[in-house]
């Protein structure tokens, strides 16, 4: 009852949904980069929305399932293949015992999530030949692949460059020209982009003052202005505090979209306000919960009908 990492990827991990309550000790929350895709992946297999799952980058790991199980693949399109057959995104999929899963070509996005019904045990990097146990014994046993006939609507995931931000505490430090550039000019994501932060490429921004600020808290989505006029958006593995000016913050609802950007992709920042940020977030969460409810119903129905064959 496990999966085996047949070949390791470059940056694949078992991810949780963030450790809360320890930032006063300098311990960062971490957790999934794209909360939307990860939640949908869990919803599709009937898990609680914040069950631990695999976070996979490209080049990705190869996985062998030692026991049949129900999975879903949501997020980046890496051309997933099971024993030479292409698998779709955003659907529940029954994997047969000894199925071998590969991701063969990146088509769009940066990070893909693989959820397994019942969840996984363990944490950290997915190392070659390591074995990851299922939390719960799968109820089913099948020797053939089954792709379910329904899929989740993930329109929130569309890869447009528009990212909404709220002004930061030190926004006013940018001079007028830099403020104008920040708000409408498209920027490219630099190659310095990892789970800690995504750097952007642009003409250096200029400030009205060089006065140092006193270190204080930062957040997932905080956009810091570096001493050389460049910017970095802090991502899931951000540090808890920082001493660079915080010019803006990406709204929570747009962090999944940003997380899926790869080096070279464009982003365009638009200023918005707290009220809009709250509305967007509530709408996104509602959508996820609807998918969770429908999935649960459909899965129950399916397993009742097919309990004899599986």
């Amino acid at each position, binding site marked *: 009852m496990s999966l085996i990492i047949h070949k390791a990827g470059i940056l694949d991990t078992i991810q949780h949904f963030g450790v809360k*309550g320890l930032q*006063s000790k300098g311990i960062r*929350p971490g957790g999934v980069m794209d909360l939307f895709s990860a939640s949908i992946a869990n919803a599709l297999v009937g898990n609680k929305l914040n069950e631990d799952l695999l976070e996979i980058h490209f080049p990705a790991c190869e996985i062998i399932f030692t026991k049949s199980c129900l999975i879903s693949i949501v997020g980046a399109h890496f051309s997933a293949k099971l024993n030479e057959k292409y698998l779709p995104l955003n659907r529940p999929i029954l994997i047969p015992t000894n199925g071998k899963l590969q991701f063969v070509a990146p088509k769009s996005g940066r990070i893909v999530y693989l959820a397994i019904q019942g969840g996984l045990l363990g944490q950290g990097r997915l190392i070659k030949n390591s074995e990851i146990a299922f939390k719960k014994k799968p109820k089913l046993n099948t020797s053939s692949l089954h792709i379910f006939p329904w899929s989740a609507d993930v329109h929130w995931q569309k890869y447009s460059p528009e990212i909404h931000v709220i002004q*930061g505490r030190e926004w006013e430090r940018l001079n007028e020209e830099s403020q104008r550039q920040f708000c409408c000019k498209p920027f490219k994501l630099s190659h310095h982009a990892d789970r800690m932060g995504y750097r952007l490429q642009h003409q250096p921004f200029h400030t009205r003052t060089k006065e140092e600020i006193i270190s*204080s808290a930062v957040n997932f989505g905080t956009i810091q202005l570096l001493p050389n006029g460049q910017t970095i958006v802090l991502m899931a593995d951000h*540090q*808890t505090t920082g001493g660079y000016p915080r010019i803006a913050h990406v709204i929570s609802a747009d962090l999944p979209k940003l997380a899926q950007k790869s080096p070279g992709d464009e982003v365009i920042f638009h200023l918005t306000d*707290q009220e809009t940020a709250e509305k967007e977030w509530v709408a996104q969460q509602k959508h996820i919960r609807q998918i969770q409810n429908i999935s649960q119903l459909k899965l129950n129905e399916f397993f009742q009908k097919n309990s004899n064959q599986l």
Partner: protein
Amino acid sequence: MNAENLKSYEIYALGDSAITIEFGKYINPETNDLVISRFNQFQENPIKGVLDLIPSYHSLTLCYDLNVVAKQKSGLHSLIDQVKSRLEEPIELHTHSTQLHEVPVVYGGKNGSDLLRVSQEKGIDLQEIIRLHAEPTYRVYMLGFIPGFAYLGELHAKLTMPRKSTPQPMIPGSIGIAGLQTGIYPSFSPGGWNIIGHTDYPLLENGMPILQAGDRVKFIPLNQL
């Protein structure tokens, strides 16, 4: 600290899922006492929807669950109102913890490789740098950056150095200086502070920091240069 100062604070949004209460504009022990006192208050009696607290030199940040806050009648305003009324409650001011850490330091050498450069740039001889660095009893103003990294202040103004322009790899126990601060790297990490010494003092226990905000630290030089 007088009553007027205690009451003055400013609240600002740190994105859509955190707010920061700023209690002052400068680094000083009184403001930091207030931060730690309010941190204890919010820790002991949590506000619904608040998931995490981040105390710093002069501010306290509350990270909240946007689901909970967005559902309240006036969203974030409801949370801010609750926070404001909490801040009206009188609290006993936390004064520095009685916990004193005596931290032995080997200055200079392989694990304090910036000491010579600091000495040259500041025009202060090595012995004097050690004396100035080891003389004060420092306060742990906050933990941050990486698990257990303690920001200590205040460093003697004569030792003020800018951060390095490119972060370098640090080993656990590296003692650095930057601006009016000194600090100890608890684990392997990149860092931009100027490393003047090294300690074997335990900094983490099962991944949890030993030094706490409000504690005091005294460096004990182990070597003569």
